[in-house]
């Protein structure tokens, strides 16, 4: 409903007294002294007085100002990150930061290679994806293609709860339940390890994959399904060869968003994955992710203005750029590769 009513288009100008006198409409109780509308006959009812009109303009402007806050937030994030990171990159070259394989800001001499932190984040996200993508997609197929309305109404809110459990609680669970469980199977696992954090994070992002993928699957028109059935396909074939390919862009978008979420998650990895920046693919060792570095360093109350303080902004900027790129890719995939029906 975007139709502009006449009232606001006429502007807030106060009509001349002559116009007001010419009006035959009763005076508005909200604005007894104000002039009437533009003099055009409006029939019964309250006239659009100057005061009412001014109120309209004020409210419109206030609401617009509210909308601007979201833009200001983005500007604030970029400004805050870039300003401190800029100070950091005066000390350390961007090249060294992006290609260095050691992250030891507290050693003498310090080394500022962010790759171990990125590798940690990627390892965790990959492990989480290994759990969440197949399970989430299968759950989405079940909910969209197999489950009846009632089953769906019971299961979906339960999956939503899974997404609503605070991440500290997941972190606690990873450290005190999943890690001992894994260690009872493979005793060589360290107390802090990537596997346990990745596993728990994978479960955490299942609802994200399943609900976004289910939206994509449900959006596939049923005519396609009926066509496939008419050609003799079984339910399985309809689901995997007709519906899933038709919804592929939405499914991919949900995958990318879920992985981006896993990269940005902080508490599970800070509690369970360790604080040892290491360039490794071994999920049984203690590692450190970008987010865990930021959280653990900031928790140590670093003094403002030091290089150490600036490192967390440089790492946060890296994290921000990576997740932003992934979100943009997911939007592009959605927009460009969407099959449009009708």
């Amino acid at each position, binding site marked *: *409903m975007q139709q502009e*009513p006449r009232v*606001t288009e006429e502007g807030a100008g106060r009509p001349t007294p002559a116009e007001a006198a010419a009006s035959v409409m009763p005076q508005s109780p909200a604005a007894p002294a104000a002039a009437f509308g533009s003099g055009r006959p409006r029939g019964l009812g*309250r006239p659009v007085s100057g005061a*009412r009109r001014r109120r*309209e303009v004020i409210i*419109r402007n206030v*609401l*617009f100002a*509210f*909308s601007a*806050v*979201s833009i200001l*937030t983005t500007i604030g994030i970029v*400004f*805050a*990150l870039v300003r401190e990171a800029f100070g950091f990159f005066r000390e350390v070259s961007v090249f060294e930061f992006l290609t260095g394989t050691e992250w030891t800001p507290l050693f003498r001499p310090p080394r500022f290679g962010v790759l171990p932190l990125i590798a940690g984040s990627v390892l965790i996200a990959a492990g989480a994806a290994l759990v969440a993508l197949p399970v989430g997609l*299968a*759950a989405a197929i*079940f909910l969209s293609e*197999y*489950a009846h309305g009632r089953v769906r109404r019971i*299961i979906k*809110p*339960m999956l939503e709860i*899974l997404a*609503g*459990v*605070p*991440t*500290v*609680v997941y972190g*606690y*669970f990873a*450290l*005190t*339940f999943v890690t001992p469980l894994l260690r009872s199977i493979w005793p060589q696992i360290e107390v802090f390890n990537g596997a346990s954090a990745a596993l728990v994070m994978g*479960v955490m992002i*299942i*609802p994200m994959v399943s609900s976004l993928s289910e939206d994509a699957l449900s959006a596939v028109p049923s005519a396609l399904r009926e066509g496939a059935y008419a050609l*003799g396909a*079984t*339910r*399985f*074939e309809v*689901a995997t060869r007709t519906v899933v390919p038709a919804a592929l862009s939405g499914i991919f978008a949900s995958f990318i968003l879920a992985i981006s979420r896993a990269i*940005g998650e*902080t508490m599970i990895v*800070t509690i369970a994955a360790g604080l040892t920046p290491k360039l490794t693919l071994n999920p049984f060792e203690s590692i450190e992710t970008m*987010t865990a570095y*930021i*959280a653990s360093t*900031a*928790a140590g109350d670093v003094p*403002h203005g030091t290089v150490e303080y600036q490192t*967390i902004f440089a790492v*946060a900027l890296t*994290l*921000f750029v990576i997740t932003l790129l992934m*979100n943009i890719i997911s939007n592009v995939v959605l927009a460009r590769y969407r099959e449009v029906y009708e």
Partner: protein
Amino acid sequence: MTGSPRTRELAGGPGLFNTRHRFRTRVGSAFAVLCFLATVVGIFFLAVLLVDIWRDGAHRLSLDFLRNGQSRFPDRTGIKPALYGSLWVLLITAVVSFPLGVGTAIWLEEYAPNSRLKKLIQTNIANLAGVPSIVYGMLGLAIFVRAMAMGRSVLAAGFTLALLILPVIIIASQEAIRAVPSSIRLGAYALGATRWEMIRHHVLPIALPGILTGTILALSRAIGEAAPLIIVGALAFVPLPPRGLLDDFTVIPIQIFNWVSRPQREFQEIAAAGSIVLLVVLLTLNAAAIYLRNRYSRKW
């Protein structure tokens, strides 16, 4: 099977048109079972998590646990400063984010012309929703704590979380407003209402349950967040609940993180007890949201 070779071929024999029907239905059933298992695996995991936390922490729950401040001694420590801190932060977050979020949603749905500006704001909100929460913490640290000189206070924390959940509130409110049929709007206009009067008296009352549900869910996300508040500076040892907007504070998730990080077994149990308190608060909020959704939702 009788009939011509051609008929036999059609019925599943070897040949060009081989339906292998039995095999295909079996694969199909196996797949259906797998999909069902995938759906329940998350719920099973949730059940294990809840049972585990209950078994670890339930015996630590007591009135004293809710009434006591922090202590080095596991038997005397309590969650009161964190509980009050969470409520303070939640209140500020709600007061800031609700009007901003609903206002933005109203502007986008009811006022914004279909222009590039609207598209820009809409895209921006979608992207903000994907920004990691810890990055909001950095924003809070740089802008609220330092530039605006609020210090490591309840106020800075509330503002930070308000910005964090703003995109969620906006998107939920937009959906609720969009669901109001346009005949309602036209009816209000036909009776001479101005645009704001139409929104205030007709659109908002109808959209309110949806808006409130979305807001409560967003607030329940805020109450579970720890990462941005670690950055804003809530980790300090806080013996007393905050008394003013600029006081030091801690919140339940941070307190849990604090307890988990300690090596003693007792503190792990206390972390579990704290998790139970947090989950109870969350479940209450979620139940309120579900109640609102069911009680007031209307179909048009």
